[in-house]
């Protein structure tokens, strides 16, 4: 139901979930495609997903999605009924439809070019046309037509498959208390699944009590009756084997096993049950719902023993399933399920997540911020109050209340932050599809191992991570993993592996992308860096291997001159690095030539609020992310030395270069603060950037606090050295410093301390001292 053309958010959110679950099914199918046997449940789930989506889309008037789902539904029905082969081509079409669905959903209610689905529909059509014809219906002779009559076409297919594959067919009869039916079913379902495939659940109306229900569960399995029986004995279920066979002799009987070993009276044939035919007559399913076949459940010698003596196996099944008039007594059918607890947990209910618009969360965060301001106002009014005589008691009470409010506000803020967290799995699934597609295009066999998909991050971060991760995966597929021939001649397995890992480390999250490809050639990187003027030849030879490899993050760096079809410009890692820095993250690379490459991205868990150190310099207030701060110290003016024109101090036998923030930003002090110039005490905030430490000189340290990050917007987000805006306590808006940029900048200036040439901001190569920093003058060895 659209309102004014915009699709309902309920529809969008359910549709999105369905498509994601469909995608996961496909990925699992893809992983299994080389296995001898496909898990039918995967195809069935995929079918169900598309079926549901079709119904949903039709109801909400989403035409293209309905059309596409309808076509896919036929294809998937064909696939699950075994009429169409599951192979790479069919999977390709299915994967393509996932992408198309996403595009269609994104385009709903928006103006813009319509997503083209004609081509895809044709391809699906071709797939559906290939269907083999129905196999002749010979194998289900003898199965109670009343059973067949209530199976869906798919369930019937699974039943036939079970028989065709030579598996045994069982009927498991169990009784459940209605209140705890979910628990009971999950319990027995879990056990049954270990034995084989559950085909269907048939409820029987013949419950002994109003608060109980009996179910007959059809199970296909290769296991023996006894094994299954003992497996479910704890649930009080009775297991019967059904033997539908092509020919029939009409002799009734079947093996049964009863856990309690009670005697089973055999039903006289032709007794109370209405019989409209003996076994053997194949009845078209569904036409005779009143028909029952004669049956007798009798186990010769089954009494009291589960390792039953061989009962005569009837040549045809004569077992009434689910017919209320001819049920074997379930004396032994009490289910020992836990009936404790009145909570009605429905294990089958849809996940209890709510999809939330980030902008709503932002509004909530803003509100909390405003509440904090109000609270600050309360506090200051309280101060005024306290100044009045005779108010001590009231003031104290007030104070206590304020403290409580402060606590609650923090909890509220924490709560809102937690709502923003989403698992990385969303992005990982998308990457899995990309790997598959790129691998096919590049004709390379690549296996993607994912772990830690449940690791959670702020939704904003996850969204921003999508592109950089995509770049890295693309690079890994295109340039990292070698062709099959190359790999084999190098003694590697033909299948390349890419590992995608995520895990939490303290208050950070680490994401690793590792491949077992050809690794990075640091010598080539060095040559390219020199060629691009990022470093002189001489300087480059003095750098360690790791420092050379880090050049791949330098702007405009790429060793591939030719653009490949899939990657375009051999996407630069500098873009990736910029994106990651914008998220207050870091990226490191580790590589071994010939063996592979590993990228590790470290990110804060949330961007919305961080801990920051608030400082003041030249009358301006700034924040520094606490994550970047190694320590803050106070030094005396006379501890500052000058080395080659740069101010440094000596700290624990190491030399620390100093940087005046006010000079960096060209901030002028108001003249009254002239005394500041000759102030004896200096505050230095030591920040770290990989192996480099720098001390930022500031006028005042105003303390640590949690600050709310505010995005700066397109116009101001690329101001170098400024990472964003923050709201500090009291509602003041203060700029957040981008430590890594500042440090790099400072070290790269022409008059910068010698040593680290890095990626020069002005692109020029630098003459001058290339001696490793710190080996001259009064300072000590680095």
């Amino acid at each position: 139901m659209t309102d004014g053309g915009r699709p309902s958010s309920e529809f969008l959110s359910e549709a999105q979930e369905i498509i994601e679950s469909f995608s996961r099914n496909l990925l699992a199918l893809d992983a299994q495609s080389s296995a001898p046997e496909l898990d039918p449940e995967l195809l069935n789930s995929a079918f169900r997903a598309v079926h549901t989506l079709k119904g949903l889309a039709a109801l909400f008037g989403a035409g293209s999605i309905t059309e596409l789902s309808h076509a896919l539904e036929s294809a998937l029905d064909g696939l699950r009924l075994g009429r169409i082969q599951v192979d790479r081509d069919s999977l390709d079409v299915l994967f393509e439809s996932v992408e198309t669905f996403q595009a269609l959903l994104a385009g709903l209610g928006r103006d813009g070019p319509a997503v083209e689905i004609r081509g895809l529909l044709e391809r699906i059509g071709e797939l559906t046309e290939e269907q083999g014809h129905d196999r002749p219906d010979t194998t289900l002779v003898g199965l109670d037509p009343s059973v067949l009559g209530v199976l869906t076409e798919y369930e019937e297919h699974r039943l036939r498959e079970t028989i065709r594959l030579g598996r045994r067919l069982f009927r498991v009869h169990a009784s459940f208390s209605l209140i705890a039916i979910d628990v009971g079913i999950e319990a027995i379902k879990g056990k049954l699944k270990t034995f084989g495939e559950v085909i269907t659940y048939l409820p029987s109306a013949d419950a002994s009590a109003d608060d109980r229900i009996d179910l007959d569960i059809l199970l296909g399995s290769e296991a023996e009756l006894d094994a299954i029986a003992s497996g479910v004995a704890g649930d009080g279920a009775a297991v019967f084997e059904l033997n539908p066979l092509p020919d029939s002799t009409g002799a009734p009987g079947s093996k049964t096993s009863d856990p309690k070993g009670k005697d089973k009276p055999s039903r006289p044939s032709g007794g109370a049950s209405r019989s409209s035919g003996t076994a053997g007559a194949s009845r078209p399913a569904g036409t005779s719902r009143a028909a029952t076949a004669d049956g007798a459940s009798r186990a010769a010698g089954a009494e009291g023993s589960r390792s039953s003596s061989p009962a005569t196996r009837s040549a045809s099944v004569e077992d009434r399933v689910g017919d209320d008039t001819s049920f074997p007594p379930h004396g032994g059918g009490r289910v020992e399920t836990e009936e404790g607890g009145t909570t009605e947990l429905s294990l089958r209910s849809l996940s209890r997540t709510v999809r939330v618009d980030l902008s709503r969360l932002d509004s909530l965060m803003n509100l909390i911020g405003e509440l904090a301001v109000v609270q600050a106002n309360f506090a200051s009014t309280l101060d005024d109050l306290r100044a009045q005589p005779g108010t001590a008691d009231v003031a104290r009470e007030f104070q206590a209340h304020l403290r409580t409010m402060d606590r609650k506000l923090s909890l509220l803020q924490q709560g809102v932050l937690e709502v923003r967290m989403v698992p990385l799995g969303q992005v990982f699934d998308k990457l899995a599809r990309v790997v598959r597609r790129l691998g096919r295009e590049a004709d390379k066999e690549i296996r993607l191992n994912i772990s830690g998909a449940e690791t959670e991050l702020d939704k904003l971060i996850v969204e921003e991570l999508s592109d950089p991760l995509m770049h890295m995966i693309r690079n890994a597929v295109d340039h990292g993993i070698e062709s099959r021939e190359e790999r084999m001649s190098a003694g590697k397995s033909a299948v390349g592996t890419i590992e995608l890992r995520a895990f939490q480390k303290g208050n950070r999250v680490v994401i690793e992308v590792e491949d077992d490809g050809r690794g990075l050639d640091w010598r080539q990187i060095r040559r390219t860096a020199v060629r691009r003027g990022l470093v002189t030849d001489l300087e480059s030879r003095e750098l360690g291997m790791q420092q050379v490899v880090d050049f791949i993050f330098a702007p405009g760096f790429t060793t591939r001159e030719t653009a490949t079809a899939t990657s375009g410009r051999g996407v630069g890692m500098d873009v990736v690095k910029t994106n990651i820095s914008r998220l207050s993250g870091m990226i490191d690379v580790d590589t071994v030539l010939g063996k592979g490459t590993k990228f590790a991205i470290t990110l804060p868990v949330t961007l919305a609020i961080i801990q920051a150190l608030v400082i003041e310099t030249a009358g301006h207030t700034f924040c520094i992310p606490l994550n970047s701060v190694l320590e803050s110290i106070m030094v005396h003016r006379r501890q500052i030395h000058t080395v080659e024109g740069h101010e440094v101090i000596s700290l624990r036998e190491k030399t620390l270069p100093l940087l005046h923030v006010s000079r960096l930003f060209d901030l002028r002090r108001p003249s009254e603060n002239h005394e500041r110039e000759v102030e004896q005490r200096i505050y230095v905030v030591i920040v770290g950037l990989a192996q480099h430490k720098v001390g930022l000189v500031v006028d005042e340290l105003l303390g640590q606090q949690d600050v709310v990050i505010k995005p700066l917007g397109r116009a101001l987000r690329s101001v170098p050295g400024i990472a964003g805006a923050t709201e500090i306590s009291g509602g003041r808006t203060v700029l957040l410093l981008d430590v890594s940029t500042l440090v790099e900048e400072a070290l790269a200036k022409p008059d910068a301390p010698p040593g680290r040439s890095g990626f020069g901001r002005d692109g020029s190569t630098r003459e001058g001292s290339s001696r490793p920093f710190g080996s001259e003058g009064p300072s000590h060895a680095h």
Partner: protein
Amino acid sequence: MVTAEQVLLVEDSSAVRDFVSAMLEAVGDYEVVEVGNGFDALRALPRGNYAFIVSDVNMPDVNGIELTRFVRQSPRHKRTPIIIISTDAAHPDVQRALAAGANAFLPKPFTAEQFLATVASIRDAANRSVE
């Protein structure tokens, strides 16, 4: 005051459930009991006296056909009208549901008018048969 009549709605898509519920509640004194799967339907059945039941056909585990037959065999609801909703009119599953005892079939997507007309007609038929 007329107490609302109960309707049991068995459908696994929550958005579709909301759609149908809204329709029913808008038109008359219906209180819709929504369940998302066959098992929950089994649980809900003894708890209410349903004027009629609306069910999807294609559900995992206990499907709509099995549910229909169960309902037809239960003493309490053996005469309760059942409407099957499904996307495919021609599908054999629909035939089986009707054979199992469902009273009417409504293909998705349906309009409110179509739905309500179907409800009216099956209730009429039910009342007539009682007489």
